[in-house]
């Protein structure tokens, strides 16, 4: 979506600039970062505009742990929009993760080991 730059509120412009800097740091030094949307004084309009500006990219995922967490990569690789919901599907937290892959999507090594043991068990039963 094309948004006339002069119409973008200063706070949203500042956020986009901050995200861009963080993405550069990720690309140059592999350093991930997060931006907590709940901690920002965003007006509902600012919030919607930021979401539209960043858009939705190729990856969308839902993680079911303590209620659903919806994750999508924005149009900008490395910029992920993460929405945490409770069991009643209400948003309880929202962050932008600047990373190659959100930590919630990565399988944990210990859990991988426990899983493989369970998998082998299915053969012996």
């Amino acid at each position, binding site marked *: 979506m094309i948004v006339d730059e002069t119409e973008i509120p200063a706070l949203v412009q500042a956020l986009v600039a901050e995200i861009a800097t963080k993405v550069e740091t990720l690309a140059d030094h592999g350093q991930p970062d997060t931006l907590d949307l709940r901690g920002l004084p965003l007006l509902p309009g600012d919030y919607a505009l930021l979401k539209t500006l960043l858009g939705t990219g190729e990856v969308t995922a839902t993680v079911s742990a*303590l209620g659903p967490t919806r994750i999508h990569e924005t149009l900008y690789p490395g910029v992920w929009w993460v929405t945490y919901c*409770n069991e009643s599907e209400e948003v309880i937290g929202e962050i932008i993760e600047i990373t190659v892959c959100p930590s919630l999507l990565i399988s944990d090594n210990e859990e991988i080991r426990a899983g493989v043991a369970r998998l082998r068990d299915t053969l012996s039963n």
Partner: protein
Amino acid sequence: MTKPTVLESLTQQGVSRRSFLKFCAISASMLALPVDKVAAALAAAPMPSIIWLHFQECTGCTESLTRSFDPTLESLILSRVSLDYHETLMAAAGDQAERVRTDAMKANYGKYILVVEGALPKTGFAAKGGRDAIAILNEAVAGAALVIAVGACASFGGLPKAFSPLPGGVSPSGAQGVSDLMKAGKVPNKTLINVPGCPPIPEVMSGVLVYYLVNKKAPALDSNLRPKLFYGETVHDECPREDFYEDGQFALTFDDEGARKGWCLLKLGCRGPKTHNACTKIRWNQGVSYPIRSGHGCLGCAEPDFWNRKNSSGAYASIYALVSGGGDGDCGGGDGGGDDDHDHD
């Protein structure tokens, strides 16, 4: 024996890594801390040793924490895996229970977190194992690294401290909160955090603990020793009915047109403008609702002496004479402490 870390304990309880990470992310957001810091600290921090004592109260705070739907991580961290002593949740009784408490205190002397639930009555009104409530508290506070007073009773005296509004009314048991006793020099002075509410929000109880585990110190407190993180704003500040308040649209009975349209509940006794708590932000029952959203005004349960209505006109009298045309403007001492008191004249 070294204690397992918070992460190890949760894993042993069948909590998945992703649930742990989500819990860390939500806690971090609530506590305004970086997620990585919270996750790294909880993965490395040994499970704290918690000794939980009950005094004069209804046990509602423990209920609040343990009766949330599924075992939430709050309840897992606080009540299942780190409690070394909790009179309601343990199986032991009598001498055996007394021994569990003294052993747990000895093993973690100077390091344990003491959680106090309930007010402290004067001698003769509560005893355990033949010992006076204040003596038991005294002994437990002496070895604690941190004392957390949960609920209105432990924080400010609560219901047991309430007294008749008639002349000469006093609390029959002479109940006091932990801070009163510390101030009076009756128990040792230790870092004390008040987590008032009747009961407090479970996430606030666990949030305070997570903050302490991550930062190894208490969060910033207001003059009533409440964490500003959770009690920094009034319920009114974030109330969805605030526009109606501003426009002077008030429900006058619980079933009038205004009540049905979601108008402000001030004239029905709402204490939101004088009450510092996080109900509007965190809500109850895992984010489902809170009193004002369900149609009832705020009772002011996180403020000192909220059970006492000096104006004797009961819970539904408006706190502002100006708008109610009645009442005496008393708010049960509820305007102390926070930073954001509203002035509504």
